[in-house]
């Protein structure tokens, strides 16, 4: 990510330390992750020590300090999805893209996470890719869905 762009985002929030979270969220959503130089720049411009920024960036799951894939795969392992076979869905996905929850594949194509209930249990087991919900999944259907994404 260009430092100029980071500065623009910071300026949009008037360079105020109280907007730190919002600034980090903006960078995260634009860049998919928070590189260390970027955090350093934010620290410098807002005059907030890097150790505090690091604490915040590691505290919230919304932030990532490592590169994320182009597609975010969230597998629901909440109770309802679990009893409907979420474990098998998760296994299928792990095998298909070769990564575990919390990881990103080498081509930066997919990042995998598990979540605990997406709020649509009637559709379980549920897989969400880039915010789009795929319901009533089976291992076969899951493999089909993954193929849609490039």
């Amino acid at each position, binding site marked *: 990510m260009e430092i100029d762009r980071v500065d623009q985002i910071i300026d949009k929030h008037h360079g105020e330390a109280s907007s730190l979270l919002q600034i980090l969220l903006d960078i995260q959503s634009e860049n998919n992750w928070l590189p260390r130089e970027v955090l*350093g720049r934010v620290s410098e411009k807002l005059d907030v*020590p*890097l*150790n*505090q920024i*690091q*604490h915040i960036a*590691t*505290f919230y799951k919304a932030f990532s300090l490592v590169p994320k894939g182009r597609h975010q795969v969230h597998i629901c392992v909440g109770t309802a999805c679990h009893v409907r076979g979420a474990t098998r869905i998760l296994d299928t996905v792990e095998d298909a893209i070769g990564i575990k929850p919390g990881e990103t594949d080498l081509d930066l194509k997919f990042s995998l996470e598990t979540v605990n209930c997406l709020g649509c249990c009637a559709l379980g087991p549920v897989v969400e890719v880039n915010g789009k919900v795929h319901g009533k999944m089976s291992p076969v259907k899951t493999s089909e869905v993954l193929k849609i994404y490039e």
Partner: protein
Amino acid sequence: MKEIQFEIDGNQVTATEGMTLLETAQSAGIFIPTLCHHEKLEPFGACRLCIVEVEANGRTKLVVSCVYLSEENIIVRTRSEKIDRIRKTIIELLMAHAPDSPKLQDLAKEYGADKDRYEKEASFCIHCGLCVRYCAEVTKKNAIGFVDRGIHKEISFIPEIAAKECNDCKECFPLCPTSYLQAAFVLTEALAFPATSKSESKE
């Protein structure tokens, strides 16, 4: 400033407004055990060891004395069967992380805590925050911070800052109750700036 009168362990004590129970007790020479308290630092309330009983209007409650402000006419008990039991459990839990900490061993002796009561999870740091807070509040270098949260919470040096500041400071080292801080520093040094420390030792 307004004076506040109350009772700790049967002694009449006087506090000025804004003083915590712990500060008042200390000024009256009454001992309350602490792990995360430091007089130069803002109250943090992390270890809960300084827990005491407060009786007000006929009701008794448990409060953490290093963050609880003195109040008129309350009755504070720094030791009771209940308090001792709670402190014993806290010590036992912390010892699952740092069984060899001399500070915890002394406390264990005092409260009859069994270091093997809980399964060991030797993470060594007990999250007292003394190092992090000292570096932020007193030396104002911010070379060390917490990362992550809950059971994954850890201390972490910022290598860029640590490389410049820590070798000439190390004021936080004696504060750590478990020596994990020193270990984390050596590790950071070895990974991030081994050259600086080598030239240092040659001088």
